[in-house]
């Protein structure tokens, strides 16, 4: 690799020019057509559910999701149903929103706090604890669910939102991401704060946290999406129907003897809307947040 770099210092300019000349437009065309076709295939399931929202629910269950529909049978009935007679649907929606906002705020604060300790200080057992963060990242939650479920039942915390959030406030992935971000902040800020007599925690809250906004945005999006879609742990914890979140509620509609398939299809579609709107508005932060950790510094 060293040899390659050495050589390239002399030849960078001609190399770029050569490549630009060679770029055939036929290849570009084939590539574009291929990409568009792949993109459309990827969008098929979403388009299918969109079409499904205009169809009779029992019809969708009977015929499957399809684009082979008689245009005359499409109607806005499901939309009317959603906004007039959807039973607990908006209750689930509000519950999910409340839980997501609370859990994300808590996760950002706690995880940034922990990450700051790892990024800004030297201490004896640091390596050991940081390896624990990495290990926690490789243990899937599915393996913890049973003992955690037993423990939560014993502690009498079942059926509460607190217990849905509490085990995940110090989130390993979020800690990892914030730590990377903090490592890039000049230590002079800390020294300046100490000179001015600010406490160690004051430096974190008043000097460092305010300049962490881009990292906060990316992590808010990642954690927000995970909370909004969270299914398994709430499924184990929640008992009372009035506390159900969207994924739990939608799942209860998917029963063989259900008679509420209209609400199932439109409800599933509508649950995607907030995430899709946020994605269109903040695409960059989504991609940054979700790909966090892949490129290690």
């Amino acid at each position, binding site marked *: 690799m060293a040899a390659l770099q050495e050589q390239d210092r002399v030849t960078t300019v001609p190399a770029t020019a050569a490549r630009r000349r060679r770029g055939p437009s036929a290849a570009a065309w084939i590539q574009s057509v291929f*990409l568009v076709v792949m993109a459309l295939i990827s969008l098929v*399931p*979403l388009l299918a559910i969109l079409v499904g929202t205009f169809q009779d629910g029992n019809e969708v269950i009977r015929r499957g999701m399809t684009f082979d529909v008689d245009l005359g049978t499409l109607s806005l009935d499901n939309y009317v149903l959603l906004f007039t007679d959807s039973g607990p649907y908006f209750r689930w929606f509000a519950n999910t929103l409340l839980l997501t906002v609370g859990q994300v705020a808590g996760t950002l604060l706690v995880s940034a706090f922990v990450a700051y300790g790892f990024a800004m200080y030297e201490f004896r057992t*640091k390596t050991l*604890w940081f*390896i624990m963060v990495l290990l926690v990242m490789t243990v899937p939650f599915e393996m913890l669910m049973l003992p955690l479920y*037993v423990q939560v039942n014993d502690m009498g915390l079942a059926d509460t939102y607190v217990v849905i959030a509490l085990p995940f406030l110090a989130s390993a992935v979020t800690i990892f991401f914030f730590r990377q971000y903090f490592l890039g902040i000049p230590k002079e800020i800390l020294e300046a704060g100490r000179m001015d007599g600010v406490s160690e925690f004051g430096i974190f809250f008043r000097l460092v946290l305010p300049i962490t906004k881009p990292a906060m945005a990316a992590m808010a999006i990642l954690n927000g999406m995970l909370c909004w879609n969270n299914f398994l742990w709430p499924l184990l914890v929640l008992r009372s129907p009035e506390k159900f979140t969207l994924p739990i509620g939608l799942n209860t509609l998917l029963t063989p003897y259900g008679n509420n398939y209209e609400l199932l299809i439109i409800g599933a579609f509508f649950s995607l809307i907030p995430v899709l709107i946020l994605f269109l508005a903040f695409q960059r932060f989504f991609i940054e947040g979700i790909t966090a950790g892949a490129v290690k510094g």
Partner: protein
Amino acid sequence: MKQLLYSKRLAPYFFILPFLVTLAVFWVVPLGRSFVMSTQEVLYGQATFIGLDNYERLWQDRIFWQALFNSLRYMVLTLVLLIPIPLALAALINSNIGSARIKGFFKASMFVPALTSVVVAGIVFRLIFAESDTAIMNQVAEFFGFGPVRWLRGDITGLVALLAIALWRWTGVNMMYFLAGMQAIPTEYYEAASIDGASRFRQFLHITVPNLRPTIVYVVTISVYGGLAMFLESFMLYAGNNSPNNQGLTVVGYLYRKGIEENDLGFASAVGVVLLVIVMTINISYLVASGTFRKEAA
């Protein structure tokens, strides 16, 4: 108090305290408890020590081996599909030909499925793979000259549906991982190589892949555990934890059935312990072999 707030020596421990507490209360204690319960018979809150009986039962349990086979098969196939395909797509859009707008549209379209919950994805794919000849996948099958397929009744066709969900949801994410890694590779490497007359494909093999190593390690690690811990995709696709001849049953599905549905906590804990050992063995040996721990600790 004031001294505590200003101590540079004690501050780091306060900062990492929430993690230490979480680690102890929600990881170490439950995992320890799992090990203890796996040596017990737990009935109505009464635990009796029975040694390794649960593990012996597990060893002789045909359904457990089937679930383990299903999980391993799914994990291997997701690795085979979800590393090379996203890698190739990332290389394609990282190339300097083609329109930036089409690439942007493509990236966004591939990424959107990752935003859906497993519940919504499961509902949609269950209905796309429905038995009716009008369902989308059966229309595709018809186009290729097959009759309507009863996808979710057959072992292999059911697996195809599960893999379709995985491909749909994760191709875009993995592609973005690889793309981010590729954009961190200095373009000079490629320029020098093309001067030397190396073909695009050779450049990909000898420059892109070696430089993407940390990203590939990361994606393999999360894919291994994601694959072995798969449960909800099957749970949603089959509208519950039961599938024909248990064809969609995974290790976590079996743990859920035994522990949550049948309340056989001791036996289910043994299932969990075996799964944990398998995942940790694969991942830790992989991370050590790839030198990740050494790099992070440094």
